């Protein structure tokens, strides 16, 4: 079913880029917050946990908004995908949403909670960060596998297949891999946000090494596993254009090596930037591997796009609002860039 004109094909493609950018920005920005949240589970000191939360207080909402933006673009431009994939992913998405809710409450209300509730609220924060990441990863893995749909003669195919179909060894694995990867991001975030000499920085430094190797292994296993079970991936990677993927791989390895160097030299901001470059390269490689599928073997970018995508609305959004918003988001991150000490959580 492809009802788009040639211009609309190009617009669908452009929106697909916008969607991918939003998803990637979400993973890069909120990934660090989620990872730092998971790491608070291992912090014995209540004020340190509070300080980690304070470190993201000014920006977590803006970071999470990229997820909402991705959802909005998906609904607006790829409604056929939105309406079927989200039904397929109902259970993991519900769990992600409960995690997001719990996290928001624990973060926003912590400074008001009684001391005896604080312990409870800290656990809730750490566990909800863990749950959100894990089930988010599960949802991605499940989406990669595709899903069955109805075949109406007139009308739009929609999801049929039950609520538990998302479960598979691969999707559980991507959930676990997401947790490990995000913990690395969280460690780098904590190191960059705290003043030098704070014990929490050294504490986290000790985990960065194992987390690094674990994350590396996760990526390798995920790629290998995908090559085995997804013909659409294997065809691209081992096809005639194999060198493109080779170049991307080398670029990713280079960025990773620079990140290691920067971490060792205590150049925390550089470490974060190199890390995010790695994430971006891997993300772009994965999205390019999937092209033209939005959901492999289920929806392509073109079959999933709204027949009403139009030049006017695209230009309005991309040339008008997007740049302005990115500018203000950046300004906000900039204002809150100073490092903090654990004492901040005392402020009352």
């Amino acid at each position: 079913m492809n009802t788009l004109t040639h211009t609309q094909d190009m617009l669908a493609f452009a929106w697909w880029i916008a969607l991918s950018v939003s998803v990637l920005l979400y993973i890069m920005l909120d990934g660090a917050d989620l990872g730092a949240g998971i790491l608070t589970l291992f912090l014995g000191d209540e004020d340190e946990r509070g300080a980690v939360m304070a470190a993201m207080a000014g920006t977590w909402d803006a970071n999470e908004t990229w997820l909402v933006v991705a959802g909005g673009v998906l609904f607006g431009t790829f409604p056929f995908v939105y309406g079927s994939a989200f039904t397929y992913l109902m259970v993991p998405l519900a769990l992600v949403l409960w995690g997001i809710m719990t996290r928001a409450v624990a973060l926003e209300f912590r400074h008001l909670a009684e001391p005896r509730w604080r312990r409870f609220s800290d656990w809730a924060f750490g566990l909800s960060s863990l749950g959100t990441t894990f089930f988010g990863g599960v949802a991605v893995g499940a989406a990669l596998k595709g899903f069955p749909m109805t075949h109406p003669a007139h009308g739009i195919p929609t999801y049929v297949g039950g609520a538990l179909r998302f479960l598979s060894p691969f999707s559980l694995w991507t959930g676990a891999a997401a947790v490990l990867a995000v913990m690395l991001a969280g460690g780098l975030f904590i190191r960059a946000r705290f003043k030098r000499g704070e014990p929490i920085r050294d504490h986290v430094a000790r985990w960065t090494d194992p987390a690094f190797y674990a994350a590396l292994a996760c990526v390798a296993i995920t790629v290998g596993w995908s090559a085995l079970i997804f013909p659409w991936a294997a065809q691209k990677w081992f096809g005639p254009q194999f060198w493109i993927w080779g170049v991307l791989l080398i670029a990713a390895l280079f960025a990773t090596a620079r990140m290691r160097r920067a971490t060792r030299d205590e150049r925390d901001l550089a470490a974060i930037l190199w890390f995010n470059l790695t994430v971006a390269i891997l993300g772009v490689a994965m999205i390019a591997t999937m092209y033209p599928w939005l959901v492999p073997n289920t929806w392509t970018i073109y079959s999933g796009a709204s027949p009403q995508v139009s030049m006017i609305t695209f230009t309005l959004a991309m040339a008008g609002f997007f740049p302005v918003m990115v500018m203000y988001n950046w300004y906000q991150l900039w204002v809150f860039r100073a490092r903090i000490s654990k004492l901040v959580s005392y402020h009352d």
Partner: protein
Amino acid sequence: MTTSDLSAFISRLDFAWITTFHIIYPPLTIGLAAMLFIAEWRWVATQDPYWYRLCRFFEKLFVVNFGAGVATGVTMEMAFGILYGPFSQAAGPFFGQVLGYETITAFMYEAGFIGLMLFGWGKISRGMHLFATFNVAFASTLSAFWILDANSWMQTPGGVTLKDGVFQISDWAKAILNPDFLYAMPHMVVASIELSLCFVAAVSAWYILGRRHVALFRRALLWSVLTLIVVAPLQIWLGDGLGRVVAHDQPAALAAMEGHYNTLTPTGQPNTGWHVVAWPNAKGDGTVWAITIPHVLSLLETHSWNGTVPGLNDFPKDQRPPVVIPFYAFRAMVAIGGVLFLVALWAAWLAVRGRLSVERIASNRWFLRALIVSGFLPYLAVWTGWWTREIARQPWVVYGLMRTRDGVSHLSAAAAIFWLVGFMLFELMVWGGAWYFFAKVIRRGPDLDSPIPAPGTESLGHLETDPDEDEEAGYFRPV
């Protein structure tokens, strides 16, 4: 009821639950942000510290509310695809785009400034801070604009044709400026302002009643109550206009809201009777008992003494909405609108008699108690208003074009129950948290001692400094 009816019913309940528990927060965000902007602007213009203290105090309540709004709102965006997959697919080209614009123009916009507004005090210049507050207020109003547009299009779907199971847009302007939107949007925005005015007045009244910070909160109380004198009748007027749009475009919905079954009386005259209270009979084609005033229905809906209003029995059985909830919910909302107007008049009378001065305000004990109660009423009005709107348009999800039963996802009853139970737990937790922390912030009272940030900008610290330099930890929570 077949199993698929059952699971469709629970899916509807799922959606009703999450919207009901989301709509508690946005109105206060919208209205209070505007009030904070005005207070801050007065502070910047007059340097009067009272305005600053009021800003900072109500901002604490704003944060709690905002957090709860975000927590419950992210769900909303995902929920359409999860619970109403086929509807989302069919309506996506219009409905999805509108929500997409909302996320870009409103949520992203708001998110870009909210951190500055909450944590930027003393870090950015006063002018920049005022600008941030303005943008938060403006962005949240924009979000109401888009959301209401999406919803009113479902009520009066203009500018589209249904082809191959997809709503194709034939006329954007008609779809966006659909008839319902022109009243529903202002009605919702004014509802948000009214709710926030009542909220601020109620909190202030509580302090004055306890004779704490009387002079400070008298100012908040006076401003909000006097604004209410304009806003309350405006809301009634807009509500009347909205009612006439419903009468015109959704006659079955209006008949359900009024419990109006027969278009004509047995003698063949137009049935003009308006039920104050009533109960439908078992067959669903009339009332068991009712207290009825003649001519009022025609007056309300047609603005004439004997105008005809189509009754429910004129519609095929499978196109009649349920009656009990829309009927009573609608009455509750209208009653609240009237009560709030009376409260505003009471305030005007007291003000004219000079009884709201700093010395005398605390002695109007019944008035202050009434204000505290009025703090809760608009919340109830918002709920009942939405229940009226959403239930009276049944069995349609897109009025007259797509039935709710064709719009719900194919979920098993077990999956739908899983969702319902989970969201009942988590959303009640958010609600409980919001109540608890509202109460706590209010009990603790305003902070009157901490220094007022000087004009100009403080150092923002450095991005990368050498390890020995002592950086300033310029980061703190607003509380």
